[in-house]
């Protein structure tokens, strides 16, 4: 390449070990070596971290330089001549290793890191078994002060990777070096146990530690896995890695790559399996949305797979009790009852609840079952309770209801408005990207949340609007942007319509008016608007705080307005980004598990589309009248219009609002069949319970929040007689006289893709080859679409839709003076079905806690740890109080994960008129003290202000 061409392309050339190479400018020598396949040993290096230069193993010879240079921190320069392995270099490396080993217990055969230890590998490579440097060795106690991380600092080589990853990647900073010289060692503040630090138990520290200093607890403690220990011992003996050993021994299915079953981030997991048990969970570095990072649920929350509570046999209620029956009987009975109800009362007397947790293939088959076999469009799922407004609102404004940008490009934003999303708790991996944007290039974050959530520590501006006043806040910001001429004229002119109407509508929504409604200072609204509008690239990130309102659709529309106003659509680091909560809620929507659309959001009411699907499915015709939503189904059940329900992988008895009402509705059904992996609160009411396979026990795909279709792979066999949802649905269909021959996930996927334009180009071959594909992907050669609306919106031009502010349906009054808002916390997941069966998580977060401000607590005579009752017009629960200054006066927060004190006994069930989503986020409540805590520490929480992992 010519010099000029190289300069333009930012390529430099250098010589390494006698050969010339071209590498990108800005690479370090280490990166250059790695890029061209030259192995330079390191110990303190991790791709996720800034180079440290601590271990001195990567020293290389650079011609003309004075002394050896560390490759990881030295920039590669044009014309450099590097030698990575001279006598001097190897001698220096050897000395460094011997110094490290001189204070390291070389007991590899007993160490749980054997086979994965970077120090072991290097010691074997250099043939060092014992150090020639004799001297004092440390004798630290092994620290096991929490259920997840074991710290054995005797094995620590002081590479600082744990310190750096906790600080640079996680943004928490639980560790640092304490003491100096020989006594230097990583530690926590004041040597407190991990549970008394802000540690989130993400385990990133474990994932980066090169030795056995930091290891994960869960798998070996409850049940020793001797085969793995023996294999590790063999690794020490033979000097190979654990993966190499397993391969050499021909072990099949040792490491299975799949997608995390928890939230919508869609992190990639490598499940290590021995004897049909998951024994370890790691995440491949620099792969997928997580890039090798996980949260406590993904990394440590997989115990539920082998929980003894798993459903292992079909159950039928006989004489009031659920008894075990054969699959044959269960399927036959279910088919008979469903057919009977359909015959006597018509197809629309049946309803199906699909699942945001099961695979795309299974959801596709379920909506096919509802429509082609039952003959009804009464199919919906819990997206109704979370992002239905996103689908409805963005479909109106943009033409497409999904996250517009990808998790990867969020990092590139110059400003981010985080509104109604406690991102570090609900989407920790996405929060990492946002924190990275702040730490790396000073991205300006605007947090709009009434509580002081963790993202506030990274924020440039914090708007504390009262829950339910988001339209007022956004309209106020829009007013400022228009008023001060900060809007993107070109974008508005060429890409949108309806600007004039919007301008008129917000003309009198001044910051002062917004301040009155929201409680946020008018000048602060101005500043936030300016920061957002002035940024080159500004993104909006939102979640339930925006959607779970009776004005949810309006809230979303106003965000879309804001984004279009400032031209922040269709480029990197911008967009309107609804963070979908569940591992496959996006997929469930995409697959048409919705009452008004088939897969790919193709309308059931459209005659041509209906004909296409009827043809594809081999039936004469399909119902064209849109069906009932989840919230409507419950009402219809109470009225006697819906008589039978088939619920798969959903737990409305915990997740729907006003669960007393839900219980009445479900009990009033003639027939209820529930298909799940555990006997949930909903399953307990069922007439038939069908045991399903968990995510680790089947093949398929999930679609995460940024429209990425990712593979789910089978790692273990399901317990007992549990079966994949795919085969259960197909069996019931066949028993009802409808042939469903496609039983393999890839067959079903192919059928679905042939009928779904946005998925048409995606195949298992492409996914299995490691390709990252965001839909829409209309044909096989298409690379997928990470960013939507680049050239034009899905509907052509973006539509500004003015929205009026409407207050929440139930506001505090004299009888119920506090505002109750509900939500989630990091260690638990949704209705707790999975996470409350993980012993470690129960240890750090044993029970529900009501968050209350110090001023309100004082007035009620409440202190942290006291038992309090929270009551609303719908019901009451009792839980421990958590008095915290994170809460503003007048607001209380209750997470909804706990079956013994379910927050949804309290919530209102009025819904948004368009999206039909309930107002989970606002209700009027009263709090009373039930019993003072004995003064002791019975809950296991630390005293003082530092709170353990459960929710910040």
């Amino acid at each position, binding site marked *: 390449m010519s010099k000029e061409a190289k300069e333009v392309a930012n390529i430099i050339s250098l010589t390494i070990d006698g050969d010339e190479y071209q590498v990108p400018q800005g690479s370090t020598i280490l990166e250059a070596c790695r890029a061209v396949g030259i192995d330079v040993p390191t110990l303190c290096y991790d791709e996720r971290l800034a180079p440290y230069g601590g271990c001195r193993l990567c020293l290389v010879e650079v011609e003309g330089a004075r002394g050896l240079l560390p490759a990881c921190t030295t920039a590669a320069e044009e014309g450099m001549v590097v030698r990575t392995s001279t006598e001097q270099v190897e001698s220096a490396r050897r000395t460094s290793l011997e110094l490290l080993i001189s204070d390291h217990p070389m*007991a590899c055969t*007993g160490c749980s890191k054997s086979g994965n230890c970077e120090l072991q590998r290097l010691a074997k490579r250099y043939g060092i078994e014992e150090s020639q440097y004799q001297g004092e060795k440390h004798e630290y106690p092994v620290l096991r002060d929490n259920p997840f991380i074991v710290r054995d600092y005797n094995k620590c080589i002081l590479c600082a990777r744990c310190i750096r990853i906790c600080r640079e990647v996680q943004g928490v900073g639980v560790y640092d070096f304490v003491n100096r010289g020989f006594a230097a060692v990583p530690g926590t503040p004041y040597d407190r146990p991990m549970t008394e630090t802000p540690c989130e138990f993400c385990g990133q520290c474990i994932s980066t530690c090169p030795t056995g200093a930091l290891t994960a607890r869960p798998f070996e403690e409850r049940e020793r896995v001797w085969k793995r220990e*023996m294999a590790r011992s063999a690794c020490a003996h033979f000097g190979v890695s654990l993966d190499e*050993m397993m391969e050499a*021994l021909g072990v099949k299915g040792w490491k299975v790559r799949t997608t995390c079953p928890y939230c919508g981030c869609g992190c990639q997991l490598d499940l290590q399996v021995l004897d049909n048990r998951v024994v370890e969970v790691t995440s491949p570095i620099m792969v997928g949305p997580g890039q090798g990072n996980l949260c406590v649920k993904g990394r440590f929350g997989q115990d539920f797979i082998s929980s003894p509570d798993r459903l292992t046999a079909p159950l039928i209620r006989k004489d009031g009790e659920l008894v075990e029956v054969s699959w044959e009987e269960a399927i036959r009975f279910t088919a008979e009852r469903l057919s009977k109800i359909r015959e006597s009362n018509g197809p629309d007397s049946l309803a199906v609840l699909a699942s945001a947790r099961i695979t795309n293939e299974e959801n596709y088959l379920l909506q096919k079952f509802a429509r082609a076999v039952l003959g009804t469009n009464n199919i919906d799922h819990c997206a109704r309770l979370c992002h239905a407004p996103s689908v409805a609102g963005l479909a109106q404004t943009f033409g497409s209801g999904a996250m517009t940008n990808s998790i990867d490009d969020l990092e590139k934003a110059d400003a981010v408005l985080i509104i109604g999303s406690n991102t570090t708790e609900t989407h920790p991996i996405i929060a990492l990207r946002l924190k990275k944007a702040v730490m790396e290039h000073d991205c300006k974050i605007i947090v709009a949340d009434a509580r002081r959530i963790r993202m506030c520590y990274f924020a440039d501006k914090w708007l504390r609007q009262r829950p339910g006043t988001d339209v007022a806040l956004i309209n106020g910001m829009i007013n400022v942007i228009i008023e001060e001429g900060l809007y993107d004229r070109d974008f508005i002119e060429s890409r949108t319509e309806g600007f004039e109407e919007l301008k008129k509508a917000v003309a009198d929504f001044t910051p002062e008016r917004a301040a009155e409604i929201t409680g946020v200072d008018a000048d602060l609204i101005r500043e936030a608007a300016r920061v957002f509008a002035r940024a080159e690239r500004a993104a909006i990130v939102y979640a339930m705080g925006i959607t779970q309102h009776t004005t949810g659709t309006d809230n979303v529309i106003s965000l879309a307005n804001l984004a279009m106003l400032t031209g922040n659509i269709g480029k990197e680091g911008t967009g309107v980004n609804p963070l979908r909560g569940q591992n496959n809620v996006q997929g469930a929507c995409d697959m048409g598990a919705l009452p008004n659309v088939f897969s790919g959001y193709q309308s059931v009411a459209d005659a041509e589309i209906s004909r296409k699907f009827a043809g594809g499915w081999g039936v004469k015709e399909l119902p064209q009248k849109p069906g009932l939503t989840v919230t409507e189904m419950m009402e219809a059940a109470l009225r006697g219009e819906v008589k039978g329900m088939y619920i798969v992988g959903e737990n409305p008895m915990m997740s729907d609002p006003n669960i007393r009402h839900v219980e009445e509705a479900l009990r009033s059904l003639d027939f209820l069949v529930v298909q799940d992996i555990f006997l949930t609160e909903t399953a307990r009411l069922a007439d038939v319970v069908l045991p399903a396979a968990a995510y680790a026990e089947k093949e398929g795909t999930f679609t995460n929040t940024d429209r990425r279709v990712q593979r789910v792979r089978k790692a273990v066999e399901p317990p007992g007689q549990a079966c994949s949802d795919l085969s259960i649905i197909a069996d019931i269909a066949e028993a009802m006289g409808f042939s469903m021959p496609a039983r393999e996930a890839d067959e079903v996927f192919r059928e679905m893709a042939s009928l779904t334009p946005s998925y048409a180009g995606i195949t298992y071959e492409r996914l299995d080859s490691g390709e990252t594909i965001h839909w829409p992907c209309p044909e096989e050669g298409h690379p997928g679409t990470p960013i939507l609306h680049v050239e034009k919106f899905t509907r052509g031009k973006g539509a500004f839709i003015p929205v009026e502010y409407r207050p929440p349906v139930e506001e505090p009054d004299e009888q119920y003076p506090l505002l109750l808002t509900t939500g989630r916390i990091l260690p638990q997941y949704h209705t707790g079905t999975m996470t409350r069966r993980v012993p470690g998580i129960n240890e750090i977060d044993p029970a529900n806690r009501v968050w209350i401000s110090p001023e309100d607590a004082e007035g009620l005579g409440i202190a942290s740890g006291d038992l309090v009752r929270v009551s609303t017009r719908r019901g009451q629960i009792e839980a421990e109080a958590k008095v915290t200054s994170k809460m503003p006066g007048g607001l209380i927060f209750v997470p909804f994960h706990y079956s013994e004190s379910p927050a949804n006994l309290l919530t209102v069930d009025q819904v948004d008129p368009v999206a039909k989503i309930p107002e989970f986020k606002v209700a009027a409540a009263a709090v009373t003290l039930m019993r003072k805590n004995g003064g002791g520490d019975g809950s296991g929480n630390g005293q003082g202000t530092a709170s353990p992992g459960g929710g910040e």
Partner: protein
Amino acid sequence: MKEEIAGAVRQALQSGRAQAALFLADEDGKLVPRLVRDADDPAIDRVYAGDQRFPASAFAAISLPSVEGVLAVVGRECDRRMINELAKLNHLDLERVLLLGIPCSQELADSCGCDHPVPPDAVVRSETKPAEEKAGPSREMGVPERLAYWMEHFSRCIRCYGCRNSCPLCVCKECALEREELAGSDCFPPDIPIFHIIRALDMADRCIDCGMCELSCPADIPLRELYREVRRVFSEHFGYQPGVSAEERSPLSFLGEEAELGVHE
């Protein structure tokens, strides 16, 4: 010897007696275990015939679930005994394991002090003779002296679990050594002599004297000597030697039945 072993492996696969074979291979001076499923797999040419060893039973137990049918395993007499014991503990299905027995060299037998260096039906002819037992100094000591001798050795223990992790018969799901009430699970150095007594008693009816424990111990504790002595006492009273028979169960494994406590001739 290498040719004979390779030949036996090929023969087992070709004849259909086994569907896979497991052996140590010498790949350019580096030793690794290898599982092959084809008689003409080139790895068989590199089968290792030297003195280095590692419990073949452990490899067999790890590989077996991924094999359909019978797994042929190249192993020594101690490997044969390990396999018998693992089978009795229900960790291996003996019907699915075919041992291709190989003898130990005289040097190895002598250094191990082993009286059974050649397995029955070995696939290789050998001249190796049983070696002199290496009793160790503790056998001649009186009780107080013996206690002092062992306590001195145990004092160097760093609780690395190397002995347990490399023992082919340490397969318990719940390990007594990790129980707070038994061996004090968190303390370092370990509570002695209880830590080693627990192991020694467990070894009474299981240890087949492969010596991996002593090989692994970074503190050079003469574990083999300890377990030998315990086994000697045990076998004097019950006449039971671990691993020799595939059918005879350990007297300690009879639950609810009576076992005779007496001296056997």
